[in-house]
């Protein structure tokens, strides 16, 4: 394992509070929500594991070598898939394997254009980088099945998630250089405006 202090970017003389702060900043940066459906999510997951292990190790050393009482951020990486028809299951598998062409051709061949179809079209678009169309497919999926938590989560993360920005500053084009940050973000695109579409 790499030097845990180096992993967190701090010196060995850092106070417990500084350790915690460094860990939180990195955990926010590589948090699963920040990489939801991201084609590089596997790399972020590796980073997160390394950060969690480093934090655990520092806590273990500082508590006299026993088991650490603190626990890092965990889980969140596994998609929770509800029951779906076998075609859609194949689409999900193809997306997870990164085979977007196969996912797309399966969806195009499907006659069922229900909520799940729209959600999966959105997931394919998102991974491909077609963000405008991804958002619109997610919106349609949520309109067709408002109670589905999976669709709602994907939409909420796109619309009102809190993308990481160093120093906890707001993230958004319309907020750039705007001194009235709170006003701007109250109803638009930054972390202040965690709005629900449905």
């Amino acid at each position, binding site marked *: 394992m790499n030097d845990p202090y180096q992993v967190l970017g701090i010196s060995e003389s850092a106070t417990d509070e500084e350790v915690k702060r460094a860990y939180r900043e990195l955990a926010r940066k590589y948090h699963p929500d*920040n990489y939801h459906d991201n084609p*590089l999510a596997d*790399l*972020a997951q590796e*980073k997160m594991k390394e950060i969690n292990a480093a934090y655990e190790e520092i806590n273990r050393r500082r508590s006299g070598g026993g088991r650490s009482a603190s626990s890092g951020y965990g889980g969140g990486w596994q998609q929770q898939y509800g029951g779906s028809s076998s075609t859609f299951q194949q689409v999900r598998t193809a997306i997870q394997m990164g085979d977007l062409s196969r996912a797309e051709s399966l969806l195009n061949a499907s006659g069922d254009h229900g909520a799940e179809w729209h959600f999966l079209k959105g997931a394919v678009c998102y991974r491909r980088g077609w963000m405008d169309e991804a958002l619109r497919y997610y919106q349609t999926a949520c309109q067709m099945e408002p109670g589905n938590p999976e669709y709602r989560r994907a939409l909420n993360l796109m619309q009102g998630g809190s993308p990481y920005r*160093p120093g906890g500053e707001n*993230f958004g*084009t319309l907020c*750039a*250089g705007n001194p009235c940050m709170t006003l701007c973000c109250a109803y638009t695109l930054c972390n202040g405006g965690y709005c629900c579409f449905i």
Partner: protein
Amino acid sequence: MFGYVRPPQDLPEEERRRFGRAYCGLCHALGERYGPAARFILNYDFTFLAILLSDPEEGPVHHGRCAAHPVHGRDRLETTPALALAADESVILAYWQLRDGVEDHDWLHGLKYRGVSALLEPAYRRAAQARPDFDGSTRRQLALLAELEREGCPSMDRAADTFAVLLRGAAGEVQEPVRRRVLEQLLYHLGRWVYLVDGADDLKRDAASGSYNPVALRYGLTQGLWTEESRRSFAATLDHSIHMMATAFELWDFGVWTPVLERTLYSGLFQVGKAVLDGTFRTGRSKKTTPALEQGGDTQERDT
């Protein structure tokens, strides 16, 4: 399509100087490989590309005089393989951008594009020979884009995808698999962002000339004017691409270039996007001095 990627104006002095050394290094690499005439294509966008492709360490710095700074001279990076790659790719990109200008204008208005592209042609031929894969993919993507423009493609994402894939090709020669994945994702979304911002910047001009504009088609804008809702939705899609660039950036150690890249991705792009949406970008850049120029990067910055 160039002129939108630039570091923010409040870049710390040390980083400003570092950026300036990369800028002058790229200028020198262009001159060294393609002769003095090729230096006119130099811009911040290409410098940003050079930095992305660079090693984590800065490498040897050379102080020398040039035509733009004949008295005091400037510090610049020695040519590295990354600067050479960026120089070659910049020549290919600039050349095809100029040819695109020739296609887009009638004979009279296309004269300046024809003249400058003829000037760059010998350099382009050598660059294309040195980087045949990048040249081939650039030509393919631009042909695809021209076809979508002819058809009047209503999908903003589909149109932007052509330029995004084109720019992603700039990382094609990177060998290390993780670094390559990171750069490809970052460059894809940088290309998407540039294409969309350029579309937004051209809204009024395209509306007046009746030219294809994917942003106007997507939002059904008349006379190139935003509605509040479309403006907000467009800003959101720009933000999604910036988010994708930032998440890719955080997964690789860019070493000494980290601060300038971080500031550009997390601040510079927001500032440019906002200025374009507010209609202050074009007026602003003719009045304000840009960071590398202040510290004497070069006087050749221009919008291609």
